[in-house]
């Protein structure tokens, strides 16, 4: 009976890669290459990078055709103009990623979406850490083969006459999507436009919308059975 009702484990099994990361990290700390405090600071920094610089890159491109040309031809140089130096993104002296940024332009006839089937290659210096779902085998395996179904699960229906172009990021190029500027944003400033270019729009699983901002207030649902006296 007790066996039958054994609760599910709170934490799923740890992957081989996580074990490897911990082992290498502990060895590096033991050898004095960096301290545990250095590691924590770096992790904190890495987790705090948001998609904001990339959003500004898109907003600038919407407003300035010359900058757009630069962004599409040379993402590395364009990144510098929004404050991201791929050679030294952390300020800790570590180039933490490959540096060949490619910006994929959405057009009325092409919709781009990014995946990495091999692991989770992601333009971290400019987009921050990848979302959890981006790293799951579910997304990685299915997006390349059933892209429209997977996009539908994100609530995005792409018309049949638009080419869905999946970019499987498997080498040293890093990719982000430049969505189309939505209607209803005429006369908007660069700052206003930056606010509506959310992370998911730059991965290709969503489209920007004039009413939806990255820092919108999250809805608050009141507890159905509130605990009294607390």
């Amino acid at each position: 009976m007790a066996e039958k009702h054994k609760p599910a484990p709170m934490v799923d099994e740890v992957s081989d890669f996580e074990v490897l990361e911990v082992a290498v990290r502990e060895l590096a700390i033991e050898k004095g290459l960096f301290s545990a405090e250095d590691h924590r600071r770096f992790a904190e920094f890495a987790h705090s990078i948001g998609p904001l610089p990339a959003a500004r890159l898109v907003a600038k491109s919407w407003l300035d055709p010359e900058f757009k040309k630069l962004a599409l031809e040379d993402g590395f140089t364009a990144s510098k103009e929004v404050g991201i130096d791929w050679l030294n993104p952390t300020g800790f002296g570590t180039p933490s990623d490959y540096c060949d940024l490619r910006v994929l332009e959405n057009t009325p006839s092409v919709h781009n979406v990014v995946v990495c089937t091999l692991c989770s290659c992601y333009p971290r210096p400019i987009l921050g850490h990848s979302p959890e779902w981006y790293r799951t085998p579910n997304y990685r395996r299915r997006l390349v083969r059933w892209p429209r179904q997977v996009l539908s699960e994100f609530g995005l229906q792409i018309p049949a006459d638009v080419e869905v172009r999946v970019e499987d990021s498997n080498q040293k190029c890093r990719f982000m999507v430049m969505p189309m500027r939505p209607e209803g944003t005429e006369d908007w400033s660069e700052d206003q436009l930056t606010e509506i270019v959310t992370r998911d729009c730059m991965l290709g699983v969503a489209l920007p919308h004039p009413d939806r901002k990255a820092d919108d207030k999250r809805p608050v649902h009141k507890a159905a059975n509130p605990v009294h006296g607390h």
Partner: protein
Amino acid sequence: MSRGHHAEKATGKGDPQCFRGEAPQPKFKVGDRVRIRDLPDIFYTRCQVYTRGAEGVVAVVTHESPAPEDEAWDNVDAPEWFYIVRFKQKELWSEYPDVYANDTLQTEFSERWLEPV
């Protein structure tokens, strides 16, 4: 060669930029039709099985770098050109719906994986 030679080489330039000028002339150009070779990959590779044998078109000639199959073993002596190849989805997945015949997929290969069609 020092153990940190990758980082030393990339400092101030970036990777793959630090391999610029080290590969022979690219064999393919944008618009060329290519087929993905089915080379042995008993060790490390970044060439997805689903692309093997498929035909596509070179969309971008990207950069020079050692192929990952070499770099994984710290062999960085023979950089080659890399290419983003565009495939029709139907070419990769026979069951892909005809109504979405325009849909495509792009991914990247080092030169050794490509043969002309």
